[in-house]
């Protein structure tokens, strides 16, 4: 309208493709980005799962020689890195990307192109870590030379080139002296790259939540899922810079000879532990809070009751976020920190149980007296609550310092964090996938197969990880590739291995169900679950423009209140015109009455992202000319892409054909 004529400043014409591979590469649609996050994360989940199975085969019996010690080290390291940074975090990002704008009534996130940038950086970072396989130059860790089963330079294997030394990269073990070779560098720089992706995403989501809520969507009317997302983004915002600093220091130690963690020169290995866990503990809540958000959405729907104590759940989540920054040293009770610090961090850790307990009781209160429908998402949500309680209780034992000393580096710890991260996060994630599948596809997942998946996974999970409790109490040490005969550790380890394969079977059931339901699932209609939140007021699958008309929110659980009223005795009664309302919403949602401006696709995010791993390779090979060239080339590529990005016209001439035209921030 008032646009002053502006000379085109962009290098490329903005991409126009709406189907095919280029439409995905250049997309800035939060839903497509969410789907890409989801599928990529699932591929990494399969890879991490295969690594876990290899680990379990090695541990099935005493003194197994299925893997070498070096391979075992590499596998438990990449298993953790993969599951944490390449599966749970990005799959949460997938949920957030897809659902956040729908749940707050927005057309997209605040910065659609930054959103695409986050995804591509994440993808390239993940590939970067695994590309270590192709740059294997394994030399035996100094402390491990001559130990049977350990690697000597003549014993290079395919797996030996991938990072080992644990996902926490403890110094000086993962430093230049004790872990020579390049493998660790791929983890150090790769995690740094992934951190950039998460940091950009956190800025994006925070601005989206603060600035783009639909009219009437006040903060305390937001779905709990959105609240938990907000808390998580702040956790990332404040913890990622700390791990960035720590990883830079390791990188400099390994590449450029600095002495941050070299105790012989007065450096401080404990500094690494502090910085790592100052990030690492908030990270735990980064992994679990989105899952709590999912469960807080699913439980009320299938209990036909509002979430019990909504503000308490919200504030407990925020409380966990705050406390999460004050408990990191409980990972370090065995590192020789002072007794005062141990007591303080022990107490602080116990206080985490309060907000967590509030949430558990609120979820129980939600189900209490409700009309429960045991659908697949509900089973997973209930499974989450039960398993998370077990994991939470074993977690409290770590707050008791003398008890923690006994448990440190035993399978008790492994059991604990798998109960919270697998029994917790992963169960909730699968529940969420079943619950929101209709939003992606307009179809339902098969309930019978879904329930089968749940029960097989539930049994497999408990068979795998419950025995680790007693193995840990018996003193079985974690991160050790073999255990001797005669300690009676064999039977429970075998049970655990069998359980791991049962989990794998359940994942196959899920994959079959997913693929089959995408094609042949029952059409879901607009509101398959009798849901409460506004993402279900628009057609399935979600139209490209999300909301045909910007929604207006009048209360918490707005959709529910439009469908239900209460009778004299306070019971929920479906309004007579509820079905009519759903039909009308479906109709209106498919037929926008006015042209809708959607953000334009762009080439620049993927180009800018591609520069980072190139810089990474350059740093790893910086002693060679190629390396120096790669650093310069990667930096220039990213800078050029960002310049092109900055000059990309904010909008193009509108082709007023109705949908899918221009506007970008």
């Amino acid at each position, binding site marked *: *309208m*008032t*646009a*002053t004529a*502006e*000379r085109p*400043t962009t290098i490329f014409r903005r991409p126009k493709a709406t189907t095919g591979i280029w439409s995905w590469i250049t997309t800035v649609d939060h839903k497509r980005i969410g789907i890409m996050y989801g599928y990529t994360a699932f591929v990494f989940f399969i890879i991490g799962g295969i690594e876990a199975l290899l680990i379990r085969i090695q541990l099935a019996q005493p003194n197994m020689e299925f893997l070498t010690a070096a391979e075992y080290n590499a596998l438990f390291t990449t298993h953790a890195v993969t599951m944490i940074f390449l599966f749970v975090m990005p799959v949460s990002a997938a949920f957030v990307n897809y659902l956040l704008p729908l749940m707050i009534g*927005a057309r997209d996130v*605040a*910065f659609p192109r930054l959103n695409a940038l986050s995804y591509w950086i994440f993808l390239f970072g993940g590939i970067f870590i695994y590309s270590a396989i192709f740059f294997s130059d394994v030399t035996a860790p100094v402390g491990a030379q001559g130990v049977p089963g350990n690697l000597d330079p003549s014993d290079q294997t395919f797996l030996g080139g991938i990072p080992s030394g644990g996902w926490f990269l403890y110094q000086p073990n993962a430093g230049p002296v004790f872990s020579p070779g390049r493998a660790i560098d791929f983890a150090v720089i790769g995690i740094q790259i992934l951190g950039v992706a998460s*940091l950009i995403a*956190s*800025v*994006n989501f*925070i*601005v989206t939540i*603060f*600035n*783009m*809520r*639909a*009219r*009437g*969507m*006040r903060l305390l009317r937001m779905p709990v899922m959105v609240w938990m997302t907000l808390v998580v983004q702040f956790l990332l*915002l*404040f913890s*990622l*810079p*700390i791990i*960035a*600093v*720590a990883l*830079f*220091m390791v990188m*400099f130690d390994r590449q*450029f*000879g*600095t*002495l*941050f963690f*070299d105790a012989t*020169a*007065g*450096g*401080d290995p404990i*500094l690494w532990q502090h*910085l790592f866990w100052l990030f690492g503990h908030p990270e735990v809540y980064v992994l679990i809070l989105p899952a709590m958000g999912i469960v807080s959405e699913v439980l009320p729907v299938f209990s036909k009751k509002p979430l019990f104590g909504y503000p308490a759940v919200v504030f407990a989540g925020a409380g966990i976020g705050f406390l999460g920054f004050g408990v990191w040293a409980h990972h370090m009770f065995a590192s020789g920190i002072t007794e005062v610090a141990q007591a303080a961090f022990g107490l602080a850790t116990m206080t985490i149980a309060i907000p967590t307990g509030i949430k558990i009781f609120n979820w129980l209160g939600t189900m209490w007296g409700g009309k429960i429908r045991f659908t697949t998402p509900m089973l997973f949500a209930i499974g989450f609550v039960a398993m998370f309680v077990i994991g939470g209780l074993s977690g409290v034992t770590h707050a008791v310092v003398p008890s923690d000393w006994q448990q440190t580096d035993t399978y008790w710890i492994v059991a604990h964090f798998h109960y919270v991260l697998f029994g917790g996060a992963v169960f909730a994630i699968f529940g969420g996938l079943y619950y929101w599948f209709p939003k992606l596809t307009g179809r339902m997942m098969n309930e019978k197969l879904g329930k089968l998946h749940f029960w097989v996974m539930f049994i497999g999970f408990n068979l795998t990880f419950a025995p680790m409790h007693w193995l840990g109490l018996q003193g079985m040490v974690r991160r050790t590739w073999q255990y001797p005969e005669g300690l009676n550790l064999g039977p429970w380890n075998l049970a655990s291995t069998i359980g791991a394969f049962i989990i794998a079977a359940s994942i196959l059931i899920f994959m079959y169900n997913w693929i089959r339901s995408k094609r042949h699932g029952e059409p879901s209609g607009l509101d398959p679950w009798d849901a409460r939140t506004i993402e279900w007021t628009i057609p399935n699958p979600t139209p490209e423009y999300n909301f045909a008309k*910007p929604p207006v929110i009048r209360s918490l659980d707005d959709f529910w209140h439009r469908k239900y009223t209460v009778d004299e005795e306070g019971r929920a009664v479906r309004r007579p015109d509820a079905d009519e309302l759903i039909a009308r919403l479906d109709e209106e949602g498919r037929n926008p009455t006015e042209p809708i*401006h959607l953000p334009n696709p762009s080439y620049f995010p993927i180009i800018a992202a591609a520069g980072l791993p190139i810089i990474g390779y350059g740093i790893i090979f910086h002693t060679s000319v190629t390396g120096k060239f790669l650093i310069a080339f990667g930096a220039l590529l990213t*800078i050029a892409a960002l*310049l092109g990005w*900055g*000059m990309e016209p*904010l*909008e193009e001439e*509108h082709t007023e054909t109705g949908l899918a035209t*221009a*506007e970008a*921030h």
Partner: protein
Amino acid sequence: MADVAQAVPAGTHGEHESTGIEHRKLGMWVFLSSEFLFFGAFITTYLLFASRPGLARPYPAEVYDIPFTSVSSFVLLMSSLTMVLAHNAIERNDQSGTRTWLLATAMLGSIFIGGQVFEFTAFVTEYGMKLTTSPAASAFFVLTGFHGLHVLVGVLMLFSLYGMSRRMGGLSPKHHLNVELVGLYWHFVDIIWIVIFTVVYLLSKPPL
């Protein structure tokens, strides 16, 4: 329609519940809050080693040239003034004034970086304090080096704004906010330097 949405802060046209702060501005504030922890962690690391006895000499605090660094700090502080003047000029739609002050800010920033290069060179060649001398020296170089990198990124952004303005014959109203965003970033980098200069240069002492 889109123009209106661009020109008016997102919160004021009634479609959204919002803070009323433009997306990009809020995003910059949020990002900078994260940057504080980045430098906080580095400064903490430096303080851990700055006075730790028994490290290889020289300690950073033994080689500082405070008068020199005071001058380059003053240069950086003045660049915040020119940045404000650039912002002020663009608010008045004074295009040539904006370009002048953007360029002045970039120049002052470049002088600061030049001073840092000179300082590093002197530490290495005259005093033999290298990146690999001691953890304290490592912490000093990496901390101030990352700050210098931030200044460099700011200078690049200033030059690209200047270039955009030259090429398009002035920054359109849509790009006015970019000046403010670069300004926010620039002041942040400046504030961090004030902390670094105070804590790392003036207050840290080598062990007795």
